[in-house]
């Protein structure tokens, strides 16, 4: 007893120290909020494992942590994103965009120097001579900038080089020998791009073209009072438009990258108001419900009939038949779905080849015709799903006492009336929650649609890429991950709607399955 207590204490200590170390790393990198959240979780964990009163939570803590971090937290974040304009266009955070303004550098062409490259006596080393352009007569300013000569440097390595430069008079005049010709200069163009020349006033100039060096200057300055940025080169002033998620200038034009901002119910209103969104959304929504409904009904009919048939005692080798019939359920779904994707391929698939031979050239366009594509999705889902229904029906049928059938036969019942008037009413009530669960599963049957059709055929004229076989989950996934616009905000809005539908469904289902106050399975 003693030693096991010591071991568990040591394990607690190691875990706590490890989490503390990671928290320290988080704080040091400047993510204070995240660090505080981790500290709170750590304190909670330590509390749960130290206080006797929280004993039950010792068993729950690990699973609740996993569930919290990878289900609840993403769910909350998704609902939060649903009220923002997060997308490829508005990708950065507000402070990220501010930083990108402050980072933006541009060559100041007015301060450019033309340059000549002089090879040193050794051959390996070079010096660069920066000559300002002659003052234009109309310029009005008489200040003539000096000509500079840099220290010798080597261009052998392709790495950033910094050399200082002095006015050419101080440096002892123009170097002897002749400057490189344009043709020779092109040869050293690439290493020359790495060169930064630091003038005596600390201005840093780099090569901007084959003839010129120019200082790189900051484009934007931040005005704290107005919370705006002004362009140092052309005087333009931009300020943040918090509703649009962009910085705009006086004329209202967008400048720079967009940032994420809360837009209230905007994403949800898009579904209602935007014609190019609403049409496809309704198509997808109706198809999702039809798809889930048909899938449940079809798989149930086939599974039920097979279960009844294989309950018939007169059939020999029922165990073997059952294993053979269950086989589609045994193969991982992603493999079967991809096999069907290939077999249904209109050009190279075997299904159309066989159909064409059997029915005189009857080859449905499984991938381009919306109706055939939907039929294909249902056929494949029937094939995938009936064994599950059969397993469920068999389980319930085996608990039905066989003497009621004998009684019915004495009363003159036919097999048909037995099936519809006795078997079906007997097994439907216990199956109801499982049928609803199956509906919810198919409502979100991502794998099937994504792997089989990826939504194709496309709906023409839709605002985003969406197809006739898309169900809500694949539509949402593709909005976020396939569409070039990466519409995270809009996708999250639809995800939120799906969440509400599915949670209502599963709540009803739970109530139906338990039918009491105490929750039990």
């Amino acid at each position, binding site marked *: 007893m003693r030693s096991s207590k010591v071991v568990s204490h040591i394990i607690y200590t190691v875990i706590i120290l490890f989490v503390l170390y990671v928290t320290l790393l988080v704080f040091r990198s400047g993510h204070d909020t995240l660090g505080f959240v981790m500290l709170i979780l750590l304190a909670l964990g330590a509390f749960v494992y130290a206080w006797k009163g929280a004993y039950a939570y010792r068993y729950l803590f690990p699973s609740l942590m996993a569930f919290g971090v*990878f289900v609840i937290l993403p769910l909350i974040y998704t609902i939060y994103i649903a009220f923002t304009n997060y997308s490829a266009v508005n990708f950065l955070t507000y402070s990220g965009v501010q930083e990108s303004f402050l980072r933006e550098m541009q060559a100041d062409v007015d301060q450019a120097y033309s340059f000549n490259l002089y090879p040193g006596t050794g051959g390996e080393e070079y010096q660069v001579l920066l000559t300002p352009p002659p003052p234009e007569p109309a310029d009005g300013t008489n200040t003539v900038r000096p000509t500079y000569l840099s220290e010798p440097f080597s261009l052998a390595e392709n790495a950033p080089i910094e050399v200082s430069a002095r006015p050419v008079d101080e440096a002892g005049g123009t170097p002897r020998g002749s400057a490189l010709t344009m043709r020779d200069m092109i040869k050293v163009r690439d290493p020359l791009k790495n060169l930064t020349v630091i003038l005596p006033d600390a201005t840093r100039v780099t090569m901007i073209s084959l003839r010129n060096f120019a200082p790189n200057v900051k484009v934007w300055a931040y005005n704290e009072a107005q919370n705006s940025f002004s362009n140092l080169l052309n005087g333009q002033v931009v300020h943040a438009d918090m509703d649009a998620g962009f910085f705009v200038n006086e004329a209202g034009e967008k400048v720079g990258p967009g940032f994420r901002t809360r837009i209230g119910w905007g994403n949800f209103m898009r579904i209602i108001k935007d014609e190019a969104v609403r049409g496809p959304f309704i198509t997808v929504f109706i198809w999702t419900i039809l798809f889930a409904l048909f899938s449940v009904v079809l798989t149930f009919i086939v599974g039920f009939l097979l279960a009844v048939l294989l309950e018939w005692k007169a059939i020999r080798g029922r165990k073997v038949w059952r294993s053979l019939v269950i086989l589609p359920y045994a193969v991982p779904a992603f493999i079967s779905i991809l096999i069907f994707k290939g077999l249904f391929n209109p050009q190279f698939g075997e299904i159309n080849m066989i159909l064409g031979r059997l029915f005189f050239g009857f080859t449905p366009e499984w991938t381009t015709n919306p109706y055939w594509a939907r039929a294909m999705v249902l056929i494949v889902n029937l094939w995938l799903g009936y064994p599950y229904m059969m397993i469920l029906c068999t389980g319930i049928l085996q608990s039905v006492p066989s003497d009621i059938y004998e009684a019915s036969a004495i009363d003159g019942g036919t097999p048909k009336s037995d099936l519809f008037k006795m078997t079906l009413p007997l097994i439907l009530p216990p199956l109801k929650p499982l049928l609803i669960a199956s509906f919810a599963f198919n409502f979100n049957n991502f794998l099937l649609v994504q792997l089989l059709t990826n939504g194709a055929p496309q709906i023409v004229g839709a605002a985003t890429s969406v197809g006739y076989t898309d169900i809500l989950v694949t539509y949402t*996934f593709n909005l976020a991950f396939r569409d070039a616009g990466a519409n995270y905000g809009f996708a999250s809005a639809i995800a939120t709607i799906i969440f509400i539908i*599915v949670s209502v469904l599963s709540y009803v289902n739970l109530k139906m399955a338990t039918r009491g106050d105490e929750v039990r399975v």
Partner: protein
Amino acid sequence: MIKSKHHKLHLFLAYACLVGFIALTMFPFLMIISISFRQGNLALGSLIPKQISLEHWKFVLGLPYADADGNIVQQPSVVLQWFWNSIKVASISSIMILLLSGSGAYAFARLRFRFRGEMLTSLMILQMFPQVLSLVAIYAILNVIGNYIPSMGLNTHPGLILVYLGGVAIYIWMIKGYFDTIPASIEESAMIDGATTFQTFIGILLPMSLPIFAVVFILSFISYIGEYPVASVCLTQTDQWTLAVGANSFLYDQNYLWGRFAATAVLSGIPISVMFLVCQKFLVSGLTSGGVKG
């Protein structure tokens, strides 16, 4: 049993139906086996190939083979790598799921604490929200984790396993349902004899619940082997892919490798299907009690 007049005819019809039905369901499997032995990736042909070619099998197994130009090519097999990745991720996730859901289910089944019922209901309802839909958030969370612990971030197997552990709720429900069927009296008498709660859990309840643990392990293993969306977003490097992500990559429209896919499907489908069929008896009870497709 009372026999109808047309008993023999009915029996014949039943057998005919079954044979026809099984022919239909087996058709894709037979086809894919045949295709894996065909030459090239686009050839149409009969069910029994006239000319057996082993090129796809050699590619899948990493053996040297002659390509279209007659050059001998030998590459380490990506398919075996993916297969190994899948087995690794699925078995580690399933073992961790067992640890988490077993202890969680114990608390819900045997211990009394506040918000027990509410927590159980909300676990079930929140779990119905598919992880696919919160992938943007999951991606961001893994990204943050990866900034501090690079070996558990994006594009790593430990990161993917962490995400999979979020699916713990349905297994808590399954195991809790099984615990509820075991009378608590043995544990109670052991407690009277001085055993601690933890000891009764490990020493009494766990050994009696091995069947449900087997069911949960197999169901979660199969569901993680076949998981596609999370793995496809979280794993970007080809050599990190799982089988589900890799197999799909053979059937991209731009790069349609039907033959290679066929060999991959047969190679990876057989062990998983055999495992399922062997454990079928266990699973049927688990499926009907949990009511959730694995």
